């Protein structure tokens, strides 16, 4: 029997306290009655009331969600194609450049991605006449570009684990490539596609830097609204907003984990049944 690793467990407890104390503190202070955000002044829910009655917040959230859903969907389609490309097409012209293009946005500093996208949009506006103003379209284009590569890494590693024999069997039985893709490949990697979409969605919903460069006046997303407020200092209604975010995300992640787990279990059970019937 091994010794209990006391030191490791102690550090781990410290680490988790470090992770969660700031978040818990923020949640507690969202119920603070005082206007001074860091001094306790009795229990109150007035910051939630002021937050929920703020029309700006609602409009910003709506714009953020629209951008996130659109860009995550497009990023998932493009990212899945790129992932399949890297996992299945070993040799084609320009593969080295392609894999470089897929890795580079992952590690490119966000400021540079943001500025270079903005430079592109400004030059396009000057020489092509589009986009005449920046907002939903430009932010969505930029978000698709830098979130699709995250989808690609997920899909690529899933495709490398997947059994190629099923695809080859379908091909041998006379299926056309597109039929194999839609009937075999995509259903097999569906959980990976789903987690790719979720990742792209949260990346888009969370982004400040790239959005701040690619948006124009009047098109404020929720992170940009928070950013402009937080730059001026700590305000109590942001505490309330943060608490709601943590709750929504916590419930969402728990639910997604539960559903993924259940569908995996069901698939395993189905697979076992299928094997038994064949015996």
């Amino acid at each position: 029997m091994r010794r209990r690793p006391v030191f490791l467990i102690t550090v781990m407890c410290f680490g988790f306290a470090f992770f969660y104390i700031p978040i818990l503190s923020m949640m507690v202070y969202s119920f603070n009655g005082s206007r001074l955000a860091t001094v306790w002044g009795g229990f109150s829910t007035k910051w939630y009331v002021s937050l929920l009655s703020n029309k700006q917040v609602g409009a910003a959230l709506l714009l953020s969600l629209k951008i996130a859903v659109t860009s995550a969907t497009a990023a998932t389609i493009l990212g899945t194609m790129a992932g399949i490309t890297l996992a299945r097409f070993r040799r084609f012209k320009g593969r080295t450049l392609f894999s470089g293009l897929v890795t580079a946005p992952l590690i490119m500093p966000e400021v540079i991605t943001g500025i270079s996208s903005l430079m592109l949009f400004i030059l396009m506006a000057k020489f092509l006449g589009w986009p005449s103003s920046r907002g939903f379209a430009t932010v969505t284009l930029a978000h698709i570009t830098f979130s699709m590569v995250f989808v690609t890494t997920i899909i690529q590693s899933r495709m490398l684990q997947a059994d190629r024999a099923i695809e080859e069997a379908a091909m041998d039985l006379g299926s056309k490539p597109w039929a194999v893709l839609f009937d075999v490949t995509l259903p097999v990697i569906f959980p990976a596609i789903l987690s790719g979409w979720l990742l792209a969605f949260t990346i888009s919903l969370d982004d400040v830097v790239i959005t701040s460069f690619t948006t124009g006046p009047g098109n404020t997303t929720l992170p940009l609204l928070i950013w402009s407020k937080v730059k001026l200092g700590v305000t109590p209604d942001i505490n309330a907003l943060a608490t709601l975010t943590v709750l929504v995300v916590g419930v969402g992640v728990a639910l997604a984990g539960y559903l993924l787990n259940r569908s995996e279990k069901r698939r395993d059970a189905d697979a076992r049944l299928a094997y038994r019937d064949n015996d």
Partner: protein
Amino acid sequence: MRNRIAHWLQGRGYRGVIIGLPYLWLLLFFFIPFCLVLAISFGSRTPTAPPFGYGGEHPWISFVGYARLFQDDLYLRAFLVSLSNAATATVLCLLLGYPMSLALTRVSASWRNILLMLVILPFWTSFLLRVYAWMGLMGKNSWFNGLLTDAYNLLTPASWAITSVPMMHSNFAVVLVMVYTYLPFMILPLYANLERLDPVLDEAAMDLGSRPFRVFLDVTLPQSIPGIIAGAMLVFIPAAGELVIPTLVGDASSPMIGRVIADEFSSASDWPMAASVAIVLLLLMVGPMMLYTHYQGRAEAGEEP
């Protein structure tokens, strides 16, 4: 005509579409913008819109942006501050993240799933709000600052007494928040690496009489070097170019390089200067990026370096 397109799509077109669409997209919206930055970095500033141009005389291009990098010590200082803050944050993440990852491999499977969830959960909440959480804790009147102030006053002579710890708007604050927000990037690749190590080697070393700490130094640590490097680069690269954290909690009088790029671009509207700084930052990151791509695969496979 229509038939021929359908025929092409069913045959060679399949590959063409699957490879071509994402390729075209990345070329258009990532590669071309990058080339623009590179081209603009050799331009010179003009009062036109967009604010850059190329001189009329030979050799058309200008190196003014790059030359100013070495003349004005604002830029060199910003690079130094960025690299030292990022390096400090990386080392601290490693010191905290390594024992945590190792502990995760030692707890029971059911605990491990919950704890891994707890490591990943902050990822899904807003980055901005996690930075903001520390603004609340570090502020002058917060309970956390009060606690630190009391502890300091208790341990030092009365003549050194302070009313609050000046944490906000310093490099200390930047490093602290970087460690906070980037720690999961260190833990996840390290854990993936450590989890794949064969415990039999540890046990063999123990049976041969090594003490636990020696086993760690001689057996575990050397095998986890790919994980350490992958995690360290995953923290160091984004930390060096960070914009949000230094803007919110950093010292405005010694800005980090991300802030300098954004300011040159937006406030000064000096595109060639912003582009030159960006290109130099990218050049500095090429080494760490190559290290990362080299070791990342090995960390996941649990191979030896």
